[in-house]
Every structure is written in structure tokens, then in C-alpha cells.
């Protein structure tokens, strides 16, 4: 017997985080204005708490902070979904620096504060679709990657942007296991990197990124599978040729460089037509996966004329 049960109160609505969507109302109220400044300080230097909402995200049902921080693929901390939360305690995301190199006029190694400082932190609520056919909706804080990259004046030779995760096997037990060719690397075409939806996230739910979510700086490309969203970034390089990308170079038959969310192109071992929405409970059906994860209007033009079955 199947009990088709749609809970009247969704789990996301009974979490305290729901209130967070209205918190600006509280914060801006005169009574709290003074005290909020006390809490607005952030150890990382990114003011995630006072980020301004941008983009249209009114009708998405946001996952709880608990779901987002306890169900992670971050192989640097272990292979199981709960491992990153369990084993990332020893990781130290502050101080942090990022090296910018390659085909740009301004290159060098910069403190996290100098990289992020000139930008105002925005709030973006995005769908996240994992290549493993599960999904979440996450309220990120961060800056559009394109705005940041422009500051370093990429040259005409910059056709791609590549990213590298920190390599600290002493703090990241998963790196000692050598399951992947660490350090993790990812890449985008320059057009993808400059797209206004592409976010360099510094926070989650108005607070600094937790270690298991890629502290202190990670990539979010909402129309691509989650593995493109490289975490704990220490290097950003402008390159003329397509860079090495960890998953697609490890198993090219299963993971592509583009990795655009596409319900019509299955993974060789499972269907990508539907997805399991995390937090929907035991009796929810899988939901249909949307082309480009629902961002087709914004990004489909990037791939005009490209055979998406071949270049998956």
C-alpha cells in the first residue's frame, strides 16, 4: 500500500531558518539596529550577515541549515555524506589567501580580505542539483565571480578559468586516502565564469561558510552539477586552453567538463530525468529535473549550437 502523504507543514517551514528570510525586517528595525552591528562582525572579513538579496528567489522552498550542513559531498573529508560535518573540525579557514595567476594583467597572492573586501556581499537562493540525482535549495551569500575576475583584468588570451582547492592532508583526512587526484581542480569557460549567475560564495544562511560547505570561499554554478562547485579555493587561474578538471579527467565517460544539468542526458549508471529533493521526507515522489536546473532562460544561449549529448 502506498500512502501518498503530503505534509501540510513542510520541514523547511518549521525550522528556525525560515525566519531568516524575514530577518532583514528585524535587523533594520530601529530597536535592533544598534545591537545588530555587534553581531555583524565576521571572522572571515566577508560581511555575509548584511548581504543584500539579488535575483528572483521568492518561490523556492529553502532547505534547512541542518540538511545543508549534514549532507555533503566533500571527499577531502571523507566519502560518506555525513563525513564532512564529522571530520572537518580541524580545518582552519582563517587566515586565507588566494593566488590569481595566468592570462591576466594583475596577478599575485592576495589575502582573503583583499580579494573579497571591495565587493558587497549578495544573497542568492539557488537550486543545487548533484550529479547523483539529489537536490537542495540553498541560500548562499557571495559575490558574482565575474565582478571579481574583472578586477584582475584578464587578457584576450584568457579563454578559461581554473580553480584549485587547498591541499592540506594534515587537516583533510580524505586527501590522505587519495581517492581522487588531489588537490581538487575545476574549470569554466570564461563566458561561464563571467555569467552573472555564477557566484563565489562566502557564506550560507547569512553566516560564514561552515568548513564542510567549502569554507571560506567556494564556487556556485547553479545550472551545473554540484561537483563543478569547487570548495575552499586557493588558486584561480586564467588559461588559454581547457584546464584539468578532477572528475571529468578521472572518469571522462561519466562526468563531463560542462556538466550542465540536463534531464535528457543520463549518467551511464543512473537516470538524470528526476531528482530526490533532500528534506522532502519518506513519502515524497522524486521531482522532475529541469533543463539547466531551471536556469535555461539565463544560460541556454551560452551553449547555442553545442551538441549537449556529446559535450555533457
Amino acid at each position, binding site marked *: 500500500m502506498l500512502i501518498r502523504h503530503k505534509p501540510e507543514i513542510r520541514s523547511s517551514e518549521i525550522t528556525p531558518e525560515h525566519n531568516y528570510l524575514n530577518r532583514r525586517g528585524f535587523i533594520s528595525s530601529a530597536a535592533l539596529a544598534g545591537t545588530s552591528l555587534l553581531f555583524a562582525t565576521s571572522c572571515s572579513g566577508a560581511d555575509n550577515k548584511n548581504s543584500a538579496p539579488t535575483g528572483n528567489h521568492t518561490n523556492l522552498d529553502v532547505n534547512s541549515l*541542518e540538511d545543508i550542513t549534514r*549532507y555533503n559531498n566533500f*571527499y577531502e573529508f571523507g566519502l560518506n555524506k555525513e563525513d564532512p560535518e564529522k571530520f572537518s573540525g580541524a580545518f582552519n579557514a582563517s587566515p586565507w589567501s588566494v593566488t590569481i595567476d595566468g592570462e591576466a594583467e594583475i596577478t599575485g597572492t592576495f589575502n582573503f580580505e583583499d580579494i573579497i573586501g571591495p565587493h558587497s556581499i549578495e544573497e542568492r537562493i539557488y537550486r543545487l542539483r548533484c550529479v547523483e540525482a539529489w537536490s537542495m535549495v540553498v541560500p548562499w551569500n557571495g559575490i558574482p565571480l565575474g565582478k571579481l575576475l574583472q578586477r584582475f583584468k584578464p587578457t584576450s588570451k584568457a579563454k578559461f578559468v581554473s580553480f584549485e582547492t587547498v591541499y592540506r592532508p594534515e587537516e583533510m583526512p580524505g586527501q590522505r586516502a587519495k581517492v581522487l587526484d588531489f588537490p581538487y581542480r575545476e574549470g569554466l569557460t570564461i563566458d561561464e565564469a563571467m555569467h552573472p549567475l555564477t557566484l563565489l560564495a562566502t557564506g550560507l544562511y547569512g553566516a560564514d561558510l561552515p568548513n564542510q560547505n567549502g569554507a571560506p570561499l567556494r564556487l556556485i554554478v547553479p545550472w551545473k552539477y554540484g561537483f563543478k562547485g569547487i570548495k575552499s579555493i586557493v588558486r584561480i587561474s586564467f588559461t588559454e586552453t581547457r584546464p584539468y578538471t578532477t572528475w571529468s579527467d578521472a572518469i571522462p565517460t561519466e562526468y563531463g567538463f560542462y556538466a550542465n544539468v540536463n534531464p535528457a542526458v543520463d549518467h551511464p549508471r543512473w537516470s538524470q530525468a528526476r531528482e*530526490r529533493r533532500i528534506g522532502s521526507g519518506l*513519502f515524497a*515522489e522524486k521531482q522532475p529535473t529541469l533543463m539547466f536546473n531551471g536556469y535555461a532562460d539565463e544560460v541556454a544561449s551560452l551553449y547555442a549550437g553545442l551538441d549537449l549529448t556529446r559535450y555533457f
Partner: protein
Amino acid sequence: MITPLTTERYGKPAVFIACSVPLIWLILKIFAVGPLQLGPNPIESIQDTLGIWGLRMLCATLAVTPLSWVAGPLLIRFRRMLGLFAFTYCGLHFLNYLILDQTFDFAAIIEDVIKRPFITIGFLGLLSMAPLAITSTGNWRRKLGRSWNRLHRLVYLTGILASWHFYWQVKKDLTEPLVYCSIIAVLLGMRIARTYRRR
């Protein structure tokens, strides 16, 4: 003193309880008893738990005969119960896929079975256990006589299919499935070695 009587009276209930513990634990997690929880993806958690215990029970079942060569024939008395537990865990693993994961979407299930080899292999593995579970009673055993033994050699195939199913399902780190593949290989290899030595 281990006798047929103590085996029946104490041994079997003890093994029955031990084999039920993972299932009871899972049910407690489903109902979130105390601190027990299935986590953010409960359906996946149920699926993985039932699958891995089905495989473990299958390994235990296949281990009984080689162990009895050293530890004595009384051990054989546990084999049917272990086999039925393996079938129960694997069957529930399939039912969870059918009901909670796919919500009876037969079009998607048929596509899965045809297009995705690891699901095909798993499904065949389950099918191979069904006749063994049905003919596990004393009546069937008497009725089938010598062919009962031959039929029940099908469990060797089940072992291969189940560990293969696990191997193909994993995304990158193959350590755990390889452990189970090795266990199955050793258990089957021991039988082959014994057959050849006897000739």
C-alpha cells in the same frame, strides 16, 4: 556442550535475534526513536542499510558450508535461517526501491532495469534467490530429493550478482565493494578447491 538439542533450543534463537538487530535498528531510525535518525536523505539511507545487510547475510550463508568442514556439521542447521534473512533484507531493499524511491513509477523502473546494468544485475540477483526461499521448507526438500541440492547451488550465482551489483553502484572508491567481492570469491573458491581435491 554443543548438541543438536542445544543448537535448536539456544543457538537458533540467538542467531535469529542477532540477524534481526539491523532491521530493528533501522525501524527505530525510521520512527526517530531517541537520538536515532535516518538523516537528510532517509530513502537512500534505508536503501543502503538494507542492501549492505542483505550482502552480509549472503556472505554469512555462503560461509556456513566451508566452516562446517572444520567446525562440524551442526553448523549446517543455521544455513537456512541465514539464507532466509539474506532474502528478507534483499527483498526489503527492492521493496524500498519500488515503493519509496520510485513510488511505483513502472515506466522508470523498467527503464532502470533495462538501461542500467547495476540495477539489472541486482534484480537478477533477487530473482535468483526467490526459488531458493520458496523451496527452503522441509517438504520441498524431501519432494525434490537430490535435485534440491543442485537447485540450491544457484546461491553461488546470487553471491556473484550481489557483490557485482555493489561494485557497479559505487561512484569512485571501490575499496568496500572489493572487500565483499573478495569474500564471495574466497567462499566460492574454497568449494572449487575442495571439489578438485576430492577427485
